[in-house]
């Protein structure tokens, strides 16, 4: 007989507990079990980055993580990026630079970019492009996204 698994984890700083089937991805668990639909599914095989979340000290595509692997982990999703009612500098910079059109890739880009700025507060254009190469955007041509990340980095340093 198949059993679902109880997973205890921390999501956006809050202790959460949920039941899931081992075959469910972390992405499915976030969206369908926990109602955190800000994390998007674009390809379900790790190649578009729309489902990017932070897991402990690394950035991952949540479609390639099983929900059961979240046991004991610290997960940060797009819902945990804003600081209370204030937007994160990256979120503000995305808006000011018109760095989103349809917006479906935006959560993944912001989460991935946050991980970059947390590690490298002063990235150059090449570093930003390399870091974000696992995130596809089909609307913007990336130009305004790169500028938004540059602006957020500048603001964070100021």
């Amino acid at each position, binding site marked *: 007989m198949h059993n679902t698994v109880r997973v205890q984890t921390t999501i956006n700083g809050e202790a959460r507990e949920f039941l899931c*089937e081992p*075959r*469910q991805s972390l992405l499915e668990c976030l*969206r369908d079990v926990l*109602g*955190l*639909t*800000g*994390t*998007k*599914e*674009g*390809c*379900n*095989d790790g*190649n*578009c980055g*729309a489902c990017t979340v932070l897991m402990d000290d690394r950035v991952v595509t949540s479609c390639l993580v099983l929900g059961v692997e979240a046991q004991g982990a610290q997960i940060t*999703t*797009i*819902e945990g*990026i*804003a600081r209370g009612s204030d*937007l994160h500098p990256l*979120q503000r910079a*995305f*808006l*000011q*630079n*018109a760095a*989103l*059109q*349809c*917006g*479906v*890739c*935006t*959560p993944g880009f*912001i989460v991935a970019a946050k991980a970059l700025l947390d590690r490298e507060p002063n990235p150059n*254009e090449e570093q*930003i*492009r*390399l870091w*974000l*190469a*696992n*995130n*596809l*955007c*089909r*609307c*913007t*041509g*990336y*130009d*305004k*996204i*790169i500028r938004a990340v540059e602006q957020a980095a500048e603001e964070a340093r100021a």
Partner: protein
Amino acid sequence: MNTEEYSVIGTRPVRHDGADKVTGRALYGADFQMAGLLHGFILRSPHAHARIRRIDTRKAAAFPGVQAVLTADDFPQVPERLVDLGEGDTPLSYARGNVLAQGKVLYRGHAVAAVAASSIHVAEEAAGLIEVDYEVLPCALTAPDAMREGAPILHEDLKTKEFGEQTSRVSNVAEHFRHAMGDIDAGFAEAEVTVEREFNTATVHQGYIEPHNATALWNNDGRILVWCSTQGAFVVRDVTACLLDVPVSRVKVTPMEIGGGFGGKIPVYLEPVAALLSKKTGRPVKIVMSRKDVFEASGPTPGSYIKVKIGARKDGRITAAQAYLAYEAGAYPGAMVAPGAMCVFAAYDIANVVIDGFDVVVNKPSTAAYRAPGATNAAFATESVVDEIAEKLGMDPLDFRLKNAAKQGTRRADGPKYRRIGCIEVIEAMKKHPHYSAPLGGPNRGRGVAIGFWFNVGLPSSCTISVNADGTVNLVEGSTDIGGTRTSIAMQAAEVLGIPAEAVRPTVVDTDSVGFTAVTGGSRTTFATGWAAYEAAHDVVRQLRDRAAKLWEVEAASVTMDRGVFRAADKSITFQELAAKLDQTGGPVVGRGAVNPRGVGGSFSGNIVDVEVDPETGKVTILRFTAVQDAGKAIHPSYVEGQMQGGSVQSIGWALNEEYWMNGSGTMMNSSLLDYRMPTALDLPMIDTVIVEVPNPGHPFGVRGVGEANIVPPPGAIANAIYHAAGVRMDRLPMNPPAIMEAIWKQRD
């Protein structure tokens, strides 16, 4: 209104839906949740062409957790008629056949049956138990293949149409278009240089990041409620009603946020299936395509075979041009070859022209629109040949284009004369740009240019505006917002009302809550729905003038309004002050605007591109890219730039790497975002933009629409740059490393 004195138009406010979209709160189609929701899964054909002998669903229906299974037989069998799919009229049987195959499967990935179950995993597993007995047939995969004598026939009843005439030829050629003007033989006889080349382009996909999705509930009152990601909620309503044989008023479609479309989210694939599954189960059913489904079973844009011949005199004047275009429609007619044939020479003023276009069905997914559909393939061919002629004449490629550029009064081969257009202004802006004269700065580098045209469209839009007591307004509209159109529409209302963009709160609503509004597509939304907002705002102003007149006890005709201030004689009152006095002057003020506009203004665009070609691997690096486009009037310049950059980059992908890589039996071998190879951030430079503004006299603010023309020139510009870098003229898309290396080897032999 004096165009120099806009206070809102031309500024760059933060988009109204911005906060929701950077925090993850915005709800897209797949985010929709509802109590009792079931998950649907669609079983798809493993064959590109086969007759369905029998479908046995019994094992699937008996699988634990399965609530319903259906096939095409479950659709009501209604008499054949035409149905508007949002991109023109199509026989109902084609629309229905593409939603669930009837009798035959015509491409790999063609929907065959559907299952609703408690979870997506259960539905998928159960679908695997459906037994389908196929008689596999030979397939035709390219236009030239499908046009061959003795080619496998997809539709036994399909006969070639020629402008309303049904010929007697049973064939894969659904339609033949022809445009002729002048005397083609005399034109070529006059030419001193003639170049004729053949081109092949691969099928490519729009590549939106969000897969198709739909949730439907067949409610107990008989109404069908749909939540989905679509470019046109009313199209979904009308097609769903038609396929399910119910009146349109029985269907209500709520458009959720949409994760990209580019033309690909106009067709309806899932909604009628979800609705029927809901009818069978009494519960809401959600279906989401996988990425593989999106590639294999939604609508890519046609692959094509094109032949272009152009002749010119030594003075640089083009004397004649001829084109033959055969586009792959995919499984059902509608290859967008009509616009391809209308655009192929649209940038030039040529007296003697013959253009033949063929709409050819093949065993690939039924194609859909993709940003200026049909024009990019054609421009790749034309702009390559134009470049070659300019080179043979020893002329600067932009001067050559300028000398032959279409302008107001130029007659196109399809007949009509252009009204005011910005082709010359775009080419002049390219010439003036510092990029055009900048040094290339290294070996194996080359610069290319190209131009392109797209018509843009009008179509109906509706909008209402209600005034709030605090001096803001609520704007209700029906155009799903794919790239910031809430804001570009709201800004036009704000301009009329004399209030800030932020004081307009735009909302996209369901099909019960606003008048008919056609698709977000054809570069029409800022143009047409913006126009509806303009009309609605003027309606509000008219009513507010009456209110001011009442307040001041003067004739309404004596009240004027300028920049949000109403005046009569020595009296004045601001929009905001007056908004607070509505109750005492007659009650709420609601304005309405509904348009089906004429005055559509086509848009020209051009690129300058520098590339470096690795002579040992054939790999192309885009070093610098400048996009120029005539916007008419840029309402929100940031989002105009964004359209130009996005269209350019999609087209760079089309030019260099993207393609449906089909094996001989019609299976797409690279149906993942890994192997389909859309450009990543690391593959590109910044995309410089130049917005040219030649106002469209047909629109109150001069808007032309900017969503599409930008995708047209890049493949030609890049091909020309590759030639100047590596000495090879590429005659196919994609111009990927192996193709370029082969061309280099061939040239060395």
